[in-house]
């Protein structure tokens, strides 16, 4: 890996630290009676209301439809996620330190897997809250109605419009991933450039990636 690629990887890992501080996802709830809206912010380690008492107010509204109260302490994944994110940060910094492209690829792979699992977990969580209703104790029962907010986008849930969107944390994580991917791109390009200089028969000593021969992918100029 080139120094610049390692710097990008380090920057990616450092950006990810920001995701500890800001919400990853947000769910806005708008209703005629709530023109100012209610909101949920999903952090790496907790779920909280956007406004001071939003979580309490949302839970108090949700009892009408038999939805479980949202209790961050009762969501196990929130206990695991900070460790996963922490491991990815440490891993990213290690990759930058060691500077091996294989490790970078592995890190990106782990990152993508964690992101996908995180989204699946979030989707399952929404589904569980929205569908697994206590109908025995629900006051308002609308046949065929379920109340999971969309993963991304807007949906009408009785009088509420639920709008679910990634928040700053996810944007930071996305940018970090792009930086990591860009680091990979840079290091691969540098490797190719090195190979070009050394001639077609020699292979890069410090790089195990297969040879890329397609002229189309050759960079316009080496550094």
């Amino acid at each position: 890996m080139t120094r610049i690629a390692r710097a990008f990887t380090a920057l990616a890992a450092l950006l990810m630290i920001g995701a500890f501080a800001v919400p990853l996802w947000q769910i806005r709830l708008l209703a005629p009676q709530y023109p100012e809206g209610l909101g949920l912010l999903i952090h790496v380690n907790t779920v909280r209301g956007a406004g001071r008492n939003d979580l309490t107010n949302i839970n108090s509204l949700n009892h009408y439809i038999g939805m479980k109260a949202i209790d961050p302490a009762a969501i196990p994944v929130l206990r695991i996620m900070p460790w996963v994110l922490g491991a990815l940060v440490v891993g990213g910094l290690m990759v930058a330190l060691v500077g091996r492209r294989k490790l970078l690829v592995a890190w990106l792979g782990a990152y993508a897997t964690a992101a996908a699992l995180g989204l699946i977990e979030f989707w399952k969580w929404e589904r569980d809250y929205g569908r697994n209703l206590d109908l025995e104790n629900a006051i308002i029962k609308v046949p065929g109605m379920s109340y999971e907010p969309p993963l991304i986008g807007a949906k009408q849930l009785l009088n509420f419009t639920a709008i679910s969107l990634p928040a700053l944390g996810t944007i930071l994580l996305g940018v970090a991933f792009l930086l990591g991917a860009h680091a990979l791109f840079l290091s691969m390009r540098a490797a190719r450039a090195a190979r070009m200089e050394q001639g077609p028969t020699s292979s890069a000593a410090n790089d195990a990636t297969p040879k890329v021969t397609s002229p189309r992918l050759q960079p316009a100029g080496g550094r």
Partner: protein
Amino acid sequence: MASNISRKLAIGVGAAVAASATLYACTATGVKSSNLVTGDAASAVYVPPGSHDEYYAFLSGGYSGQVTVYALPSGRAIKQIPVFSQFPENGYGYDENTKAMLQTSYGFVPWDDSHHPELSQTDGIPDGRWLFINGNNTPRVARIDLSLFETTEILELPNAAGGHASPFTTPDTKYIVSATRFSVPVPNTDVPIDTYKKNFKGVLSFITADQPGKMDVAFQILMPGYNYDLAHAGKGPSDGWFFFTTYNTEQAYEKLELNASKNDKDVIAAVDYRRAEACVKDGKAKSVPAKYTHNYKDESTHIASSERKTSVKVLDPRDCEGVVYLLPTPKSPHGVDIDPSGEYIVASGKLATVIPVHSFSKMKKAIADKAYDGDVDGIPILKYTATIAGEVQKPGLGPLHTEFDGKGNAYTSMFISSEIVKWKLGTWEVLDRMPIYYSVGHLMIPGGDSKQPWGKYLVSLNKITKDRYLPTGPELAQSAQLIDISGDKMKMLLDFPTIGEPHYAQGIPASVLKDKQVKYYPLSENKNPGAVKAESEGGITRTGKRVDVKMAAIRSHFAPDNLEGVQVGDTVYFHVTNIEQDWDIVHGFAVLGANNAELILAPGATRTLKWIPQAPGVYPFYCTDFCSALHQEMQGYVRVSPAGSSVPLMANVSKKARAQMSQQ
């Protein structure tokens, strides 16, 4: 490959960001309520200075216990009528004249929760004689005389708790009804609460209403222990029937929010009250002991008095076959509203997903065919399919109440989805929707619950105000909205704040009321024993520790205006008569240290304020209503001496009074 992936990723994230930006934009540009106002709404509600509005609207004051009168379409508040709560602004419930109005079997109850104003009717059309209103907490009904805009009669209801389904009238105002919201043991006795199913009962009271001063419980019908919510009388073909909604047919007595919401259907009780009358006449009702109070203010003396009643006639439906039928109705029905033709019975189940409409003719047929689905305590339950005329599909969320425009349309308030939905009778199709700010409870079209709606305006009576007006701390004004319903589409015209929580309201064209307003009380008809008809009649007398002062108020003085000989330990009664005989010349009377309130005196009226002086000294009294150029000079003094003092009893005599006396 890798760069390809990273490009794709970049595009993917970019797309997500763009999507979120679009969504933000959508929510940010969502229709603002102020944009709902279309056309020239301002001129539609503008009533130029000095001009009169087209309609009177009477809005219940909710937990203020009163009624507030508004003018439509301007939305201007023109009067608060004190009913169930003391009103220091004019001394209602504080002075010796009106204290008796708030007497109950529980003693003096100076507050209540007023919900449903109801105009008296003749042939099913509001006639502007009286307005009735219920007190929900300590069940009472009141009569307001609409030539005076004053409460003149209050009747307490025995065997009831929470007089909510009240005071709806028959088309001829022969009866108004009051049904119990809370079932209680009848008679009320000390039983464990968990014996609810066995011991708790509901009663439907029929109150004679067409003769002022003679309101009384004609009879009560003993019903299963449900919660009785709202009511309306039949009309036209359904004349002679009364319909009551019920919820908590589960007969829950704890956590009702949940436990009274379990049944898919509750019931509407349809009462054939002519049949009930016949059974009562045949002696089938039992006279049971009951304590309740009837208060009536005599307009010739301006004095209210209380009468204690000791028994009431209770009819058990088992002793009077065919008097009540139950119509299954989804789901915790709130309002029950009869269309102007009298054929359709519209029920609004607060938790229902449709608005069911029963047909009166189908109900009659179901009764004739005995299309029963069991019974409750001997009261037949009719089959839902046998009485239902149609269901309004997908009307919105949380339907509560329906009113009619007389042009074949119905308007239903939707609490949860915060809108008013217009739909067509007969086809049950939704025609229009109007968002409401916020959470409408009742709605009112002048005459909209009668045989003859004046279908021009609709008033939405809202439960949540939030950001509609300048903020005023944690407690906000309540609010109403005025909607033009004269066209195909509803048009939002106006927001106006209200005093107290408006539950139901009534409206009537101004032309019906405005020419019958009393402008002053003729002195010659004033039969109050403390009245003076001329300044010369004023004076002071002592009977033991009681001192009576008779006093005239006329621009710009009291006669007498200097009083001496009152002693600590005395109780002083000021009987003040406004001897003016001119419209809107009102005087007030207040005395330093009075523990009650002031008096406000309409021209020709006499009112009495009780005052117990605490210490020797000289105490001023004055006129509180700016009556004339020299209003600030309208004052006097009472000298209070120690107990046992030898200061003689004295009331000075004005020049004018002296002249009057020498003429006699």
